[in-house]
């Protein structure tokens, strides 16, 4: 039984194929088209997934789309009716598209997938797709399930329980009441892009104080003890307008939204800290109530808000659940995996399958890979000069370069599915270097200086470095650097404000220690990524430190690299010192500089 899952037409289009319970392939369209958050039908991702599964479209047993356009249209219509005569601006932008055919997405999808029997095309609810992506691939037989995002059709948050391979939805919160939209409102208000800048707000929060949290609770949101909530629509614009917040919101917080790319002020940091604190509190109330209602000791999560790894860490430490598993592609792209799994289990009768006793995501390494001959052929065609190394030499030479302070592009095996690079499409650095964060942010990633970097750590060493006893293979849990790795802060540190604290070393691994001593941790496991595990082991042998800086292999605004060509362009266009593609090692000093393209301005800022 082979099932194709598709998410598309909002943001982060993706495709996934499940065959007899096994997730064979999954990829986001943006990686192929090189257009960040590409929302168009995922033609390239579908083609890749079908190739990986060895199937033609007409051989599929089912195609499942990740949401229900009929319910979405119903929500839009009800919203316009509820707010009329207000709402014209939004109405005139949205409705012509829906009346022009967007509501009949079955026709669009069938037109894109030639040869598909229309009877095989199905539509799942958005949050049911998320819940399926959270529970079915998890390592748990039974678990509570929480899905939280901006909005799907009507639902914005869903609680469920998964037991013995079945999924039962328990409760939901519906539009316009949404934790994701509350967070998005502050993302907009602090000058970042919604649906992509939420990560920056989370990274900015530790620089500020949550002094606006009480205003949010008093005016914007009524939260019950069980975490259910309503947003006071008198302060928001998203039901009727084209932005997230209105003048009343701006008056409450003392001014208009920050213009994008302008100086970050203390107030923006405090706003970020405040919405993060409110989100933490809401999600903790939700998960405590869910633990009580279901009696479960394990929790699965998905939906865009589940990418908030600060909150995830707090949920884990809260202790209501012994284990927490978050779908690595928790955002809408992951809906494609959930939809495919629903089709496989419910239509095809496929079993739940886990790989090697772990979860069923294969380390999230579900995207395209390139064999050694293919890599060499492509690099040669690009004019690259490289050495081909033996297996052991690859990790040895790379570890030596990292220990010498080089920034390394590391391209191995199959591409990750989801927003995080997990050691196959990564830029790596030495976390002990006090200058590494600045070097990577300003010379290689070309991104905002305040943004922290994440550590990859040998799974067996995680509790030596961080206050974390659980695995975090998908970089979705934040925990603190252990006290014995912290260094004394300079006198008068407390007098420093906001970004002034950025350059003060706080630990023996300063490049991955945020200003509040937290770190967004990826535990690296030999079972899912042996070569990356070997690299960390070699680095530890040389330095005593089984930790590396791991950031996605791209520059700001660019989708993570997919092919050796993408990696080459990024390598040549930035100040990366070394590129390792499979067993091929490329030194910057050996390359012809005339082959470098203008890379810094090649991508629109996100």
């Amino acid at each position: 039984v082979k099932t194709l899952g598709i998410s598309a037409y909002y943001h982060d289009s993706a495709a996934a194929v499940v065959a007899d319970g096994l997730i064979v392939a999954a990829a986001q369209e943006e990686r192929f088209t090189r257009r960040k958050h590409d929302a168009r039908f995922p033609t390239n991702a579908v083609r890749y997934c079908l190739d990986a599964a060895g199937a033609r479209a007409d051989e599929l047993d089912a195609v499942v789309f990740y949401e229900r356009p009929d319910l979405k249209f119903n929500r839009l219509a009800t919203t316009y009716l509820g707010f009329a005569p207000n709402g014209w601006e939004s109405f005139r932008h949205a409705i012509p598209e829906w009346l022009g055919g967007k509501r009949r997405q079955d026709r669009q999808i069938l037109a894109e997938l030639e040869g598909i029997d229309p009877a095989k095309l199905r539509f799942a609810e958005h949050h049911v797709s998320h819940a399926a992506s959270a529970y079915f691939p998890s390592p748990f037989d039974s678990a509570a399930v929480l899905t939280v995002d901006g909005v799907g059709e009507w639902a914005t948050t869903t609680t469920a329980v998964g037991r013995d391979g079945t999924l039962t939805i328990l409760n939901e919160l519906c539009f316009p009441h949404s934790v994701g939209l509350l967070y998005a409102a502050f993302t907009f208000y602090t000058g970042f892009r919604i649906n992509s800048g939420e990560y920056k707000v989370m990274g900015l929060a530790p620089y500020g104080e949550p002094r606006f949290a009480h205003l949010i609770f008093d005016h914007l949101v009524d939260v019950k003890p069980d975490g259910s909530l309503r947003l006071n629509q008198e302060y928001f614009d998203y039901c009727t307008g084209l932005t997230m917040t209105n003048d009343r919101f701006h008056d409450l917080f003392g001014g208009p939204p920050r213009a994008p790319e302008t100086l970050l002020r203390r107030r923006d940091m405090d706003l970020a800290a405040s919405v993060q604190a409110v989100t933490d509190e809401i999600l903790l109330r939700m998960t405590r109530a869910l633990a009580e209602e279901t009696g479960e000791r394990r929790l699965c999560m998905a939906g865009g808000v589940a990418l908030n790894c600060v909150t995830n860490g707090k949920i884990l430490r809260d202790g209501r659940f012994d284990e927490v598993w978050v779908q690595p592609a928790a955002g809408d792209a992951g809906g494609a995996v959930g939809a495919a799994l629903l089709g496989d289990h419910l239509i095809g009768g496929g079993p739940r399958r886990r790989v090697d006793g772990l979860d069923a995501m294969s380390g999230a390494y579900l995207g395209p890979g390139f064999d050694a001959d293919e890599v060499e052929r492509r690099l040669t065609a690009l004019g690259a000069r490289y050495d081909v190394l033996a297996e052991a030499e690859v990790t040895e030479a790379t570890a030596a370069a990292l220990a010498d302070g080089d920034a390394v592009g590391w391209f191995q095996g199959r591409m990750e599915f989801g927003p995080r690079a997990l050691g196959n499409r990564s830029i790596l650095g030495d976390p002990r270097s006090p200058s590494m964060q600045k070097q990577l942010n300003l010379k290689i990633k070309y991104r905002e200086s305040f943004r922290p970097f994440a550590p990859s750590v040998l799974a067996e060493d995680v509790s030596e470095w961080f206050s974390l006893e659980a695995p975090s293979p998908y970089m979705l849990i934040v925990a603190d650097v252990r006290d014995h790795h912290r260094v004394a802060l300079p006198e008068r540190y407390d007098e420093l404000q906001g970004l002034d604290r950025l350059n003060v070393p706080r630990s023996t691994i300063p490049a991955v220690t945020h200003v509040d001593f937290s770190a967004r941790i990826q535990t690296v496991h030999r079972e899912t990524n042996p070569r990356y595990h070997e690299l960390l082991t070699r680095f530890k042998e040389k330095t005593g430190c089984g930790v590396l800086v791991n950031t996605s292999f791209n520059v700001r605004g660019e989708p993570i690299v997919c092919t050796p060509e993408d990696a080459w362009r990024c390598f040549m266009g930035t100040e990366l010192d070394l590129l390792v593609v499979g067993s091929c090692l490329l030194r910057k000093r050996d390359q012809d500089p005339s082959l470098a393209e203008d890379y810094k301005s090649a991508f629109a800022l996100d």
Partner: protein
Amino acid sequence: VRTRLLFILVVTPLGVLGRPLWRRQLGLTIDRGAETYWRRRRDGEVSAADLRRSS
């Protein structure tokens, strides 16, 4: 023009006439005294019947 007419002649009158209904459906009232805002789903296990054939 058709979109504008639709908004003025259909959406606005229907919206105004049915305002209590729409606002209840959207849950636009903050109810400080309510115990919960969760909506209970009573459709049981997710099954093949939940995968709809048409959009």
